[in-house]
């Protein structure tokens, strides 16, 4: 089980308090201008790399807020968590 630091509560809490929210920093295409390929990419294609992965988590039974997280997908080590809207930090 992961130990995740909520950047709003500023506390490390067990994974069962959180809900995973998928890849972070996805930007919804403009519905008036996007091509089929852009929609396909947005709807179905996700980062699936070995290494650092940017993802969203929600502190479901805590503050209830979404935040972002960088985690190594090979070791599951969490590098850093940061608030929604903040720029993705340089991977450590």
């Amino acid at each position, binding site marked *: *089980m*992961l130990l995740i630091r909520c950047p709003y509560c500023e506390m490390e809490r067990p*994974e*069962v308090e959180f*809900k*995973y929210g998928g890849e972070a920093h996805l930007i919804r295409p403009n519905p008036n201008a996007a091509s*089929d*390929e852009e929609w*396909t990419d947005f*709807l*179905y*294609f*996700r*980062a*699936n*790399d*070995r290494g650092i*992965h940017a*993802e969203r988590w929600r502190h479901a039974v805590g503050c209830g807020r979404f935040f972002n997280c960088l*985690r190594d*997908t*090979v*070791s*599951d080590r969490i590098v850093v968590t940061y608030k929604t809207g903040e720029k993705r930090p340089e991977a450590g």
Partner: protein
Amino acid sequence: MKFSFASLARQALSGHQGWPEQWRSPDPKPSYDAVIVGAGGHGLATAYYMAKEHGLRNVAVVEKGWLGGGNTGRNTTIVRSNYLWEASEAIYGHAHKFWPTLSQELNYNAMFSPRGVMLLAHSHHDEYAFKRHIHANRLAGIPNEWLTPEQAKEFCPILNIDPGIRYPVVGAALQRTGGTARHDVVAWGYARAASALGVDILQNCEVKAMRRDASGAVSGLETTRGAIATKKIGVVAAGNTSVVMAMAGVRLPLESFPLQALVSEPLKPVMPCVVMSNTIHAYMSQSDKGELVIGAGTDAYVSYSQTGGLHIVSSTLDAICEMFPIASRLRMMRNWGGIVDTTPDRSPIIGKTPVPGLYVNCGWGTGGFKATPGSGHLFAHQVATGEPHPIAAPFSLDRFRSGALINEATAAAVAH
């Protein structure tokens, strides 16, 4: 060497010292007509059917570890075909047809045991969904039937059908032709049969890069055992498919998650069938060694760790103990996590990629074992001829652009 009563008798007389190795371990040749990446069940079956049905014998299967050492050797061995949509019924039904005669086909005992797979319904929603499944399956010629809780208990006497439990059993869907098979043997049997037809199985041979020619088509592979030239590459790398395909610049709609399973200490026979519950995410059967083989869910997040959170296993065991009170004092011997490649619609991807000469067979997610023979058979057709087999055609990568998804995520049984 063919296994037979005569060969067994001959070897018995010489103290079983003369059995030959079951497959060759050759050094890589500089070039092959086709290379399959990944020596799991699906990859080895692909190579076997390419050699047997398409006459392609100058073929290699490259594997970064040892053959059958990934999810093929780490699954709950369940075989069934009761999926909802026509395309799924066709592909899983195609795969199911191979199982009853697989041992004879490979001359290797796959121990297929069609002992029945029973899916438990715990609510009215489950009941309606399952009955819809049953009707759809029967229209497609796949046997599936509805059981009352009493009939379910008769079929599996250790089942708890007390209406007072948290998730009471309100009925079950039973596919009598489903069951289990010996997972390792499927890999070994295909490896042995493919090797006998001339296929080179190259273990400890990790792909490091893919070469492309001036037109963009594949021209070879760089591996830890040297460069291999080839015009056709079929990638069957399960959880690591995204990593391998990225070497050719191809992205896929896949996410890799750890899926866990565990086995108990061995018991005398207590369980005559496979029981699955999607609602409470647990399934169980008994191996021929007597261990109860228990399947849990996936972790929520993308990971290549080949391990999983203990809370996933723990919630599965809560469900198992409620469904089967007999299991409450059992010790679990070991658990493990395999990395499964899941697609957004929970159906596999078999077919072409944007790179000429590069084909992919992936996205079997949490339930690929049952499809091993059919998957290999269909993908062999794709790699050998360059065109999809009609049964595999709906499972193209293009469906995510066209929108013709085959949504088994909510339609079918979640667990596999």
